[in-house]
């Protein structure tokens, strides 16, 4: 069963070669089309794309698996000289976990909650005909050290629920690397982890892939994460790889308009600038245009683009782009950050909202310790911190959704009751809340018109035709057309849903808008568009906003003030530019340095490239030149 390691190195020097991969739904609608790429041993190839681009489907196809309703139509996935797609079930089962392995997105659901982690690690080794118990024990200890977890028997006797999310994911990594696989597919393994944990997981992936000479495919929607972990990147759009090349080169001088817009949509730590979203949305499988799929959203669109699907065009060695104008695109000025954010005039005469000695409890646990904050008129205050820092609890207490708190929250010169229920109608109207997940915050049984119009009714602002008119106006204001009023949430994309939720919050003309992680469930280009919208609304309507997020770069683009929370206490509080530019506290510095971004990724690429040796010398020179 074990194959000579030498066989891994084929003529092209690639450990994994994918050629002409086509995946379609069982009814024949193409989902992934004409995909070809290679991954060298020890290399991490990043696959980025927004939801629906087919990136996860590609990841699974490398294991010879197609999700229910999909089938692999043609193409080959060569692992050495074996074609994974030609294998029968028995061969595939032997392959998975030994020569190829998979790390799924959610570590909690991928580990068996009823088995101790040591038992599960041992299983992973035993399943593939490993030898003696003693050898397994030694190997488990080695693996645990490699993923930076304790290897003592006490720790191995723990159950998955006794570990944090980051530890669970590192166990997932240990299991995936246990049999020294030739290929490892990682599907967004750091989504849902804190930045600090994410940073260690990313470093582990990179180091293990290099140490074992495993080819790794890293699927993610987050460009900054991919930039931090991958040496080469494939950008997917509408089921095709539109651009493929070395990470630094691809992000610095993109040769495809989609990549350029995507890079432009990423918030940066180093400067407050307007984020520019990509108008329109990606075509769904089955409604993809005959020519370039990005053409309808492209600024450089010309009639030739619609004729046929562009073939990959070589920009420089190893960097290709499926754009007929790739050579022009790449010469365009380096992706320019958008204009600087225009700060709205903050009126600091009297705070619109002020928190004094806010202490909140969950049951017997104190989760917020004496929080003091002021929100000025027309100001956006960002609350940042890792999960469990109390940022959402603060927001929910302001809106009266978390009731178990003491201290005072004042709106203007009015002391607020703890729960929304006990507050006056006018107070409830003045403080509006936008929830994190637009898939949960809209009632699926209500039309958009009903949802947006609801506050008008409940607050007795307007009814009948007047209400319909206001709803239509509000929908236009959040860049949806008035015709959306008749639609239902399941007919909308995530970004559209979030716009509806924002419209519902703003229709009653609130004085304070509380946004709880409103972009974390959205794609980057959509996130940029939502932040753009919120910024515009803030300036136009003179809104005061509380913006809760774990995304530090995003804060730069929207907030004037920032408060950093850790374990329920304020670590640092002040002007955004000052704090992010010159953090005074160790914790803040730590958060910033662990935040993946394109800039820091490039610097690390230099170190990484030097570890890889001469074949990657290109990186070194290019990166150094930036």
């Amino acid at each position, binding site marked *: 069963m074990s194959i000579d390691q030498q066989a891994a190195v084929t003529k092209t020097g690639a450990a994994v070669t994918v050629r002409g991969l086509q995946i379609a739904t069982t009814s024949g609608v193409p989902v992934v089309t004409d995909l070809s790429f290679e991954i060298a041993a020890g290399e991490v190839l990043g696959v980025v794309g927004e939801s629906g681009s087919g990136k996860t489907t590609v990841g699974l196809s490398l294991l010879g698996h197609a999700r229910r309703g999909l089938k692999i139509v043609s193409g080959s996935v060569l692992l050495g000289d074996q074609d994974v797609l030609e294998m029968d079930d028995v061969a595939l089962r032997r392959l998975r976990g030994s020569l190829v392995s998979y790390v799924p997105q959610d570590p909690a659901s991928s580990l068996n909650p009823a088995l101790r982690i040591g038992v599960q690690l041992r299983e992973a080794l035993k399943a593939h005909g490993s030898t003696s118990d003693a050898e397994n024990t030694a190997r488990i200890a080695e693996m645990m050290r490699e993923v930076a977890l304790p290897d003592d028997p006490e720790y191995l006797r723990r159950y998955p629920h006794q570990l944090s999310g980051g530890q669970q994911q590192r166990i997932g990594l240990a299991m995936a690397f246990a049999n020294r696989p030739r290929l490892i597919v990682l599907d967004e393994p750091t989504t849902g982890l804190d930045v600090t944990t994410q940073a260690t997981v990313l470093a582990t992936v990179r180091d293990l892939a290099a140490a074992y000479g495993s080819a790794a495919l890293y699927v993610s929607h987050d460009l900054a994460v991919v930039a931090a972990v991958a040496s080469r990147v494939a950008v997917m759009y509408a089921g095709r790889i539109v651009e493929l090349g070395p990470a630094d080169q691809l992000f610095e001088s993109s040769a495809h308009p989609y990549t350029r817009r995507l890079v432009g949509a990423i918030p940066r730590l180093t400067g407050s600038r307007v984020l520019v979203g990509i108008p329109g949305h990606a075509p769904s499988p089955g409604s993809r245009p005959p020519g370039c799929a990005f053409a309808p959203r492209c600024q450089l669109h010309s009639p030739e683009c619609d004729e046929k699907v562009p073939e990959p065009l070589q920009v420089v060695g190893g960097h290709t782009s499926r754009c007929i104008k790739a050579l022009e695109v790449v010469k365009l000025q380096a992706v320019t950050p958008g204009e600087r954010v225009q700060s709205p005039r903050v009126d600091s005469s009297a705070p619109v909202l002020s928190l004094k000695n806010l202490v909140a409890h969950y049951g017997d646990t104190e989760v917020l310790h004496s929080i003091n904050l002021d929100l000025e008129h027309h100001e956006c205050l960002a609350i940042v911190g890792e999960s469990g820092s109390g940022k959402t609890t603060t927001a929910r207490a302001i809106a009266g959704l978390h009731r178990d708190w003491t201290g005072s929250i004042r709106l203007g010169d009015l002391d607020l009751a703890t729960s*929304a229920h006990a507050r006056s109608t006018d107070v409830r109207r003045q403080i509006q809340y936008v929830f994190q997940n637009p898939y*949960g915050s809209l009632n699926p049984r209500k039309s958009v018109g009903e949802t947006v119009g*609801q506050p008008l009714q*409940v607050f007795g602002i307007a009814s009948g035709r007047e209400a319909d008119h206001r709803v239509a106006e509000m929908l236009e204001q959040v860049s949806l057309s008035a015709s959306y009023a008749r639609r239902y949430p399941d007919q909308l994309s995530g970004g559209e849903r979030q716009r509806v939720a924002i419209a519902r919050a703003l229709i009653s003309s609130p004085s304070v808008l509380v946004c709880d992680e409103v972009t974390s469930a959205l794609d980057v280009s959509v996130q940029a568009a939502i932040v753009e919208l919120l910024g515009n609304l803030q300036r136009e309507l003179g809104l005061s906003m509380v913006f809760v997020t774990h995304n530090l770069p995003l804060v730069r683009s929207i907030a004037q003030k920032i408060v950093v929370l850790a374990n329920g206490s304020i670590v640092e509080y002040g002007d955004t530019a000052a704090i992010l530019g010159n953090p005074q506290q160790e914790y803040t510095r730590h958060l910033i340095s662990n935040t993946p971004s394109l800039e820091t990724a490039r610097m690390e690429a230099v170190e990484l490239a030097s570890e890889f040796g001469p074949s990657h010398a290109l990186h070194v020179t290019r990166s150094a030149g930036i």
Partner: protein
Amino acid sequence: MSQTVAAPPLPESADTKAPSGRSSTLLARSLRLWRSRIGVAAVALLVAIAVFGPLLAPSAPDKFVALPNSLPGTSGTVFGTDYLGQDVWSRFLTGGGEILVLAVVSTAIGLVLGVAIGLISAYSRNAWDDVLMRGMDVLMAFPQIMLVLVAVSLVGPETWIIVLAIALTTAPRVARVARGAAQPVVERDFIGATQAMGMSRLRILFGELLPNILGPLMVEASLRLTYSIGIIATLAFLGLSGNPNSPNWGTMIQQNQTALATQPWGALLPIIAIALLTVGSGLIGDGIARAAAGIDRERAA
């Protein structure tokens, strides 16, 4: 509020009277399944018999037409006579209305009660939840038929006590389903949004929560209707119906079972009817459940 709750107890009327625009898609989808179509056809046939049967009956149900237990054909009877010499076909045609009306009314009352209790339990998430649901557990610890028999033996075989007893024993079962379906919905943010708006609890329960659990409720409604029919027929079989000589399908089975070997039709016709009715409403419920779960592989072309 009560219109929305009371609307779907009769499954065959539910496809025309969908409570809201969106749940009609669920019913429309379920009607693409053969099992639902067969169920609707069976139930529709029996409802038609119950409604129009009395108009078509060749003679009055309590009229002596021939000797007892005459075979079909005797004196122009279609299915012969029963143990008193009354026309089986006429009694069958007039005997469906009572059982159906009682079943629908008692199930509807049980549904309204059960949904209200279930929603309040799911939404309150405090001691009320425990008190209500443990109360329901106590009621459910006894078989439905036993509680109904106790009630009927205490008060006597009055129609109102039969309806009330079935309704009260149906409610806890519905409450359990309603609570189970509503619990995950309560956790979703759109409920939080309405709370932040200060919407009244009643409106949150019946305006926001209820429309989101209609799928499982419709399934439960049809299942409960099946059980109610069974219980009413059982009571009649045991001789516990409002009027012992009313032409009730359950009564007919009991009265004519002794002649099953010589003149089977007196018992067989109502047996077939009740079987078809329960299987039909069961199929409808199953169809909705499958449509909701997206298991519509047997989709008609």
